[in-house]
């Protein structure tokens, strides 16, 4: 497979292959020398058309642990404003000689377009509201690492589903693996026909907490207030935030996850942040591991080609 663009293209078997490779990468990261020469001589370009220090750092760390060279390209301003098309920009980077391009873009679908033009492998580092497959894979790895089986697992994703690539990709990944997913949000933060994503829908967080194995909180963007999608951050927190009371209702064996960075006092109360069920730092650690696996598999399969 040349590119990793969405979870849907992987299916359960593709996710499983990445998880197996990630196990091998976790072992590499635990070595006295946490670095292997697997991608020596390969160049991975990170093309971030939208700022994201976390995701960029995670990908670049992953690439360096596999001994790839990293080429860093920032273009936070719109390509239209620069008078250069997306294709122009990509062809410029590719002309420098790259084997893989990690793309983060504010526009949904930009990595798909780039994959059509580029000979290099394209890895989606998050596009618009559409997809963020490596985030979902690291989340799957984090849940799997706890020894949880996805079949029948109850996962609640809470927050701004409408504008969230993480929500879309995570619903796809969890559903592919057999989990029951409920998205919890006020109607204004749910996209039309949300049920066709494969998740159940609830507007009442308290009603789902007691049966939740994994509580996945999404980041609430402050700009949504300006669009009158919710009246205020305070009202959002009271209705959909993880308060101390709600944390008590949540089963002791459950996991609390968040793609980061967390808005204290919005998605989660400050007194819950240190709850032992919170896995936010595991998610960050696993981000490097899973992205190593993705870079390795994509570049290996691109280099090796299909069978004779």
């Amino acid at each position, binding site marked *: 497979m040349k590119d990793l663009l969405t979870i849907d293209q992987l299916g359960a078997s593709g996710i499983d292959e990445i998880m197996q490779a990630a196990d091998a990468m976790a072992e590499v990261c635990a070595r006295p020398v946490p670095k292997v020469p697997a991608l020596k001589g390969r160049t991975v370009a990170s093309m971030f058309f939208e700022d994201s220090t976390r995701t960029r750092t995670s990908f670049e760390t992953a690439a360096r642990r596999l001994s790839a060279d990293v080429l860093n390209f920032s273009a936070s301003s719109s390509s239209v404003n620069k008078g250069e*098309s997306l294709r122009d920009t990509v062809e410029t980077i590719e002309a420098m000689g790259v084997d893989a391009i990690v793309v983060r873009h504010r*526009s*949904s*679908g930009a990595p798909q*377009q780039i994959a059509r033009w580029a000979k290099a492998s394209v890895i989606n580092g998050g596009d618009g*509201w559409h997809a963020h497959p490596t985030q979902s894979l690291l989340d799957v790895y984090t849940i799997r690492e706890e020894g949880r089986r996805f079949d029948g697992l109850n996962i609640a994703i809470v927050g701004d589903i409408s504008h969230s690539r993480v929500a*879309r990709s995570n619903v796809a990944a969890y559903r592919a693996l057999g989990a029951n997913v409920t998205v919890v949000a006020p109607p204004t933060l749910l996209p*039309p026909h949300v049920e066709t*994503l494969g998740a159940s829908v609830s507007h009442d967080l308290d009603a789902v907490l007691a049966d939740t194995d994994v509580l996945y909180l999404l980041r609430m963007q402050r700009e949504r207030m300006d669009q009158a999608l919710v009246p205020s951050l305070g009202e959002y927190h009271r209705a959909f935030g993880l308060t101390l009371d709600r944390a008590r209702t949540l089963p002791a064996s459950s996991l609390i996850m968040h793609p980061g960075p967390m808005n204290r006092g919005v998605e989660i109360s400050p007194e819950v942040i240190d709850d032992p069920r919170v896995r936010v730092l595991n998610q960050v650690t696993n981000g490097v591991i899973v992205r190593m696996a993705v870079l390795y598999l994509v570049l290996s399969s691109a280099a090796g080609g299909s069978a004779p």
Partner: protein
Amino acid sequence: MITIIRNAQIGPDGDKADVRIENGTISAIGDLGEVAGAHELDGSDAVVVPGFVDLRAHLREPGREEAETIATGSRGAALGGFTAVVAMPNTDPAIDSPGAVRDLRALAEGASCEVVAAAALTVGRAGALLTPMGELAAVGVRIFSDADRTVSDTGLMRRIMEYATGLTAVAGGEPIVLSHHCDDVHLSAGAHMHEGEWSTHLGIRGVPREAETIMLARDIALARKTGCRLHVPHVSAAESVAMIAEAKADGLAITADVTVHHLVFTDADCASFDPVFKVTPPFRTEVDRAALEAGVLDGTIDAIVTDHAPHEPHTKEFPFDEAPPGVIGFETALGALLTDTDVSLGRIVEAMSIVPAQIAGIGERHGRPIAVGQPANLAVVDLDHEWSVDGSAMASRSHNTPWHGRVLRGAVRHTIFEGDVVVDGGEAQR
């Protein structure tokens, strides 16, 4: 100069005959024999139809000549069998004054088809001040439109409609036609495709059908109140078709058109994120597409248009949400209708020639019967010719066709404009 179309079927249901054209007029139809010095056109296995009339096209000149000029646009139109196109006024500067209309007509001298100037409803299409509609009507403008912009101010729209009803005498006895893009901008702001399952899956902000139907309901109510002659362009939603049918049943003087591409594509085509499938209004669902096609077949929708909207090639290499909407459509219109829809050639002649010619006020020159004494604005079409669409091979300066790479059955062989052969054997002559 005498031109003879040999051995062609005369009209969608007619018999085979030769057609003799001289001095811009059909001078004879029948078994005509040899004529010394005549220009012969092969009509075998082809049908002579009145040249097509496009009620809605963007020729980009003046202002965006890198995307299209009147010369290249009209050449493409001729290749598509069109002998007249209505040029939308969203040029730079906008066509909002008699001087701008005269300039446009001067630019259109020598074009490959008749270029009919539509004028803006509001000055600079800014939605604030009326254009000098009376003066514009006096220089022959019959269609007014702010192109892809909506007059959101309901009070202003009412005044425009009322004012237009007073211009019938200036316009030579036929009412001025107001072609108004129906879009509630508060519902469509920031949207790039139809709001539905696909927009949810693709993570693209969608525009709901109600953005169209709410504004259409307003326009119908105002048209009923003012008695103006309303035309609804590029209908996209099933509900809109029903509303137009109801308004017609009530006896309202309302007409509507649909684009060729809305009869073919749906929001599912956006799944590739290829911005060549980004249009305004957006492709909606199969339910809507089927309702539009049914509307054409039962006559609720009066006309089929191309909404030809060229964009320079690199603009379709932007991300979906940054790319401008619109597709080119002259050269693919006939083939796409015959290949991808159930619309017959007979209905195509009505909806893409006879009726739009009347709406545009050019019915005495275009969309005429194939008969002796009629003006020779004709197309000779080969219903069985299969061809592969190549966007870069189009006459247009732009390549943004959603049919690129597809095979269409049905093509224009010859086009005769004012008696001149402007397309001969599929080759443009101007």
